[in-house]
């Protein structure tokens, strides 16, 4: 029953130097922090390798000195040992402080760089037009600013330093081992190829398996979400058993995927540990032979102190971590490349509606609106509005009627300049909308949408949304004029009552009245109203109608009308059909002349023996 679109895990793209440099530019204001971090990183990586070396040296020189060496008294041996121990402590403290500095400086640079990037992205999103938004689900846009930025954050604040640190660490370990005893070092390196093989074979597969698990979990969660939301339907159709079967299938899929991933982990982890044991065995055998001056395969392998052997036992285990990290880094870089590509693609998109060079500020709107031979297509190809001509005098109320998809909303979108026409002109007070600044136009429009959207914040903030500087008296007056004051006063905290997400704690009617107040407070030159279709009870309906009268009084208004009373009271009814204006006139004229309007609304009147409220 339930269809899933698998969890969209981050994609991967090959390394792209130009993109990487563009990303790095966000760090350049913080380059001194980077320099600090890198210096600390080198110190930390080097200091961390001092321990085993000091341990080994202390053994060979003082704890178990070679018989050939200069004979020391016990006191000399003990104080020599103490000296090495203090050096050891010093190296640990240095490591700690250097790691602290390294991480902190890097995070400072990365976090600030990412901050700037996200800020730039958000600002750009505010400029992009509705067309861009229309063609993408909100979730996808969200994930640009959240997940994709997060991926880059991980690369910059952790990935890069980890990999640099690991390279330095590996280098230092190899160098120290070679200096201590080149032959034993070369023998120990035998564990490196299998470790690399394990890392580069298993790691990508494990990551893939975990991605699969996440996808399956996402499927389960999506199924649960839908099952819970739809539980009333399920129960009323007595469909529980079928749903159990569907859920069980997903549950089992998740089980299988998890067990498969665990299988890989269960091989990989002990495998790596086994290579560790192998390293120990090699060092013991080879190193032991050197100490005993035994020959291996008939070759003399040289001489060695047991302390060096002890140090090697530690070093040989230290290859593992850096190699694991390096194998992860590759994937991380690929994900980051995919994320940057997507982010930069957004940032490189030019807004489709832009102020023309030399656009003027639209003077105070008087309210004359004209559509002059307007063509429009959302996709640039299929016209949804064709040769629209309309002239509206200041102060008129225009009702747009017609089927869903006929082109009513398009006309309003063009008037707000959410889009530009493909051909023709839209004019307000004789100004082509393309010749005025978008801000000066919209700042003078009042728009009430069908689906009332309220912001989280107080009732007051919502009413004052279009005019944040409005005084308390103005806000209350606006609310009173649209019949909203009385119910607002009755809310637990009056005008300070927080409005939940999308206004969830208010009724539909209340939300509409607040959006009326919001529009009225702005005192717009032109009012645009997409009438709500959702029915409210008869009493609230009356309040809304009264509020409408106030709102429409003495200003040009464009209404996508659903209430017959609104349509009847309009100065001009514009009937839109299949992207064309087919009829215009008053209600009586249009009923009298027959045609599309009479078909649509005449039937309605007959059926109800009178207009509906």
């Amino acid at each position, binding site marked *: 029953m339930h269809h899933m679109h698998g969890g969209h895990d981050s994609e991967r793209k090959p390394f792209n130097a130009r993109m990487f440099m563009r990303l790095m530019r966000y760090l350049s204001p913080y380059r001194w922090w980077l320099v600090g971090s890198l210096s600390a990183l080198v110190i930390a990586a080097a200091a961390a390798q001092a321990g085993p070396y000091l341990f080994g040296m202390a053994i060979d020189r003082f704890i*178990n000195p070679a018989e050939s060496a200069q004979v020391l008294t*016990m006191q000399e041996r003990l104080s020599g040992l103490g000296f090495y121990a203090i050096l050891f*402590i010093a190296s640990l403290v240095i490591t*700690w402080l250097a790691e602290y500095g390294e991480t902190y400086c890097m995070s400072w640079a990365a976090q600030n760089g990412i901050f700037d990037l996200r800020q730039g992205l958000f600002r750009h999103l505010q400029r992009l037009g509705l067309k861009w938004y229309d063609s993408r689900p909100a979730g996808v846009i*969200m994930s640009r600013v959240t997940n994709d930025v997060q991926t880059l954050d991980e690369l910059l604040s952790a990935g890069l330093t980890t990999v640099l640190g690991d390279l330095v660490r590996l280098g230092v370990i190899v160098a120290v081992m070679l200096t201590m005893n080149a032959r034993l070092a070369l023998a120990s390196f035998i564990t490196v190829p299998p470790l690399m093989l394990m890392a580069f074979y298993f790691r990508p597969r494990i990551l893939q398996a975990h991605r699969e698990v996440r996808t399956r979990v996402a499927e389960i969660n999506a199924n649960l979400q839908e099952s819970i939301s739809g539980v009333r339907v399920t129960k009323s159709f007595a469909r529980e058993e079928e749903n159990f079967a569907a859920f069980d299938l997903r549950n089992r899929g998740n089980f299988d995927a998890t067990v498969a991933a665990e299988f890989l982990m269960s091989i990989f982890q002990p495998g790596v540990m086994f290579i560790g044991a192998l390293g120990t065995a090699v060092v013991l055998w080879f190193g032991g032979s050197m100490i005993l001056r035994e020959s291996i395969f008939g070759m003399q392998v040289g001489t060695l102190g047991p302390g060096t052997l002890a140090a090697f036992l530690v070093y040989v285990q230290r290859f593992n971590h850096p190699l694991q990290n390096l194998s992860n880094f590759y994937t991380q870089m690929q994900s980051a490349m995919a994320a940057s590509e997507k982010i930069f693609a957004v940032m490189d998109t030019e807004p489709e509606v832009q102020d023309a060079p030399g656009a003027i500020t639209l003077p105070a709107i008087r309210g004359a609106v004209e559509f002059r031979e307007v063509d429009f297509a959302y996709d640039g190809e299929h016209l949804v509005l064709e040769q629209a001509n309309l002239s509206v005098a200041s102060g008129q109320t225009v009702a747009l009627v017609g089927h869903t998809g006929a082109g009513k909303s398009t006309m309003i979108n063009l008037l707000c300049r959410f889009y530009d026409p493909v051909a023709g002109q839209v004019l307000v007070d004789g100004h082509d909308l393309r010749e005025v600044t978008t801000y000066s136009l919209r700042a003078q429009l009042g728009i009430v949408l069908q689906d009332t959207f309220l912001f989280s914040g107080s009732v007051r903030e919502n009413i004052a949304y279009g005019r944040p500087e409005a005084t308390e008296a103005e806000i209350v007056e606006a609310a009173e004029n649209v019949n909203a004051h009385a119910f607002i006063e009755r809310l637990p905290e009056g005008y300070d009552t927080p409005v939940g997400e999308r206004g969830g704690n208010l009724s539909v009617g209340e939300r509409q009245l607040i959006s009326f107040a919001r529009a009225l407070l702005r005192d717009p030159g032109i009012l645009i109203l997409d009438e709500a279709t959702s029915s409210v009870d008869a009493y609230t309906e009356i309040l809304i109608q009264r509020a409408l009268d106030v709102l429409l009084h003495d200003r040009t208004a464009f209404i996508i009308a659903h209430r017959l009373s609104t349509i009847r009271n309009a100065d001009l009814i514009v009937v839109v059909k299949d992207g064309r204006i087919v009829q215009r006139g008053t209600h009586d004229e249009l009923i009298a002349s027959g045609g599309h309007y009479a078909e649509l609304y005449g039937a309605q009147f007959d059926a109800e023996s009178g207009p509906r409220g």
Partner: protein
Amino acid sequence: MKTIWRLLGYLRPYLGWLILSNVAMLGLVVMSFAIPWLTRYVIDVAIIAEQSALLLPLSLGVIGAGILHGGMFFVRRYSSAIIGQRVIYDLRNELYRHLHALPFSFYDRSKTGEIMSRVTQDVETMRRFLAFGLVNLVRSVVMSVGILFFLLFINWRLTLVVLITVPPLVMTIRAFATQVRPMYRRVQEELAGLTAVLQENIAGLRVIRSFAQEELEVEKFVEQHQRYLAHNLRTIRRWSFFFPLMNMITAMGTVIILWYGGSEVIRGNMTLGWLVAFNQYLALLLGPLRMLGWLVNLTERASASATRVFELLDTRSDILEISNPIRMPTARGDVQFSNVHFAYDSGGDSVLRGISFHARPGETVALLGATGSGKSTVVNLIPRFYDPNRGRVLIDGRDVRRFAIEDIRRNVGIVMQETFLFSAPIAENIAYGRPEATMEEVEAAARAAQIHDFIMGLPQGYDTVVGERGVGLSGGQKQRVAIARALLLNPPILILDDSTSSVDVETEHLIQRALAHVMRGRTSFVIAQRLSSVREADQILVLDQGRIVQRGTHRSLIRQEGIYREIHLLQSGDASSISEEVYRRARTKALEVGGKEAR
């Protein structure tokens, strides 16, 4: 603790696996001991005592131990993963079934998000505990206690001296947990806040653009973004202080082994081999110890999660089937309410106060009244979504509580106030109540609901996926799909709750036509705000505050003084003709209603 035991009870069917896992764990601990021990033997015996013949066999012994260790590790890890995953599989299915057994009243009280967080996040925490936490908890304890005694036996002085690193280590781990974890949570909260701002920004796009308030939005975003940045940096600073500190304290143990252990070797109280082995054992001791903090935390969280999940599982449905219920393949459609009282919360306000009426087979009953008058409640009692507190609801002359619940619901088709479609092809949505229906039946239902033509116009026709993750349908389209879905059941009793509320004029017209057609021959209950949709009913019941205040047909009611005539007056007049008195009454009435609806 009781919760944890109950959770462990789920392990019972997998006892064999559990034993295997623990045996492997013990073997693993033994093998962990072996490698340092062999190392020590090589150094002391083969190298220092120069018994060179032992060198190769002992080195091979290390490899052998490595192989055994690896094998044990595999068995332990894989088996415990299987156990944990099986248990969670069982638990998820149990939860899923239970969620479907819970009554409507439970869903009235609970938010979807809260239920979701229990069945997803809480279950995930429990899974982590069962798959990793439990087995590592046992291993950590066995391992650290075992090694501790072993080391005390080898050299108790050195062991005690090394142990002085443990208190500062534990303190640091605790400080890390108490300071850094809450800071992390805070960062997560700030990030969630940032996501919320963003989400609102996208959802409110048109409002923002039309009010030209982009700058205000940027300000909101910057403010929240800066808070996130500040908390993030603060947390990283604390973290990058503590984390290397823990490493340093751990490494201090090695310094002590070198310094004190070295002097023991110099004094001849210990051999060099043990000195080297001691260092390896120390890592085996401190590793589990460092993990213990995380494990204890995981156990606590799993316990809290289990409490919430079990609480959900222990919630019992109050709509229960009697034993030996009456089976009813097809009802005649006679519905009777006899003095029904009902309140959503026991002891709360009564929503229905003595409702009585009788709908004969094939009749249409319209329910009318303001929001909160009890209309929806009345129809919710018919398919037994709730049981009345007093009085009886009868179908075909028998109390609904005596029927099998499945039978009642198969006989009652409902089109709910809020239409919910599943993310599935339209055909599947229409066949929701009868998955075995043929395509012809589905199409016939869609035709009757006046939605067939629309569906055929979609690019993928009946295969078009709708719902949350599919193509968005308008309110009217969704409603017609829901009507088709109810019709396919061919129910003798049909309930249409406010089914024409959120559609435009043309669609309403379509739906009216669809309904007139499908109500024929069924007992139908219609709830509507608009009088136009109830005029043809055989009975009209006008409800006010849980009582039937008027009943009759349109013709009779329109002649009576009362609510019905008042609403009729309100709805047929246009705004300008409404008298001041009606307007004033509307203001007070709307206030009462709005208050009831929203709060």
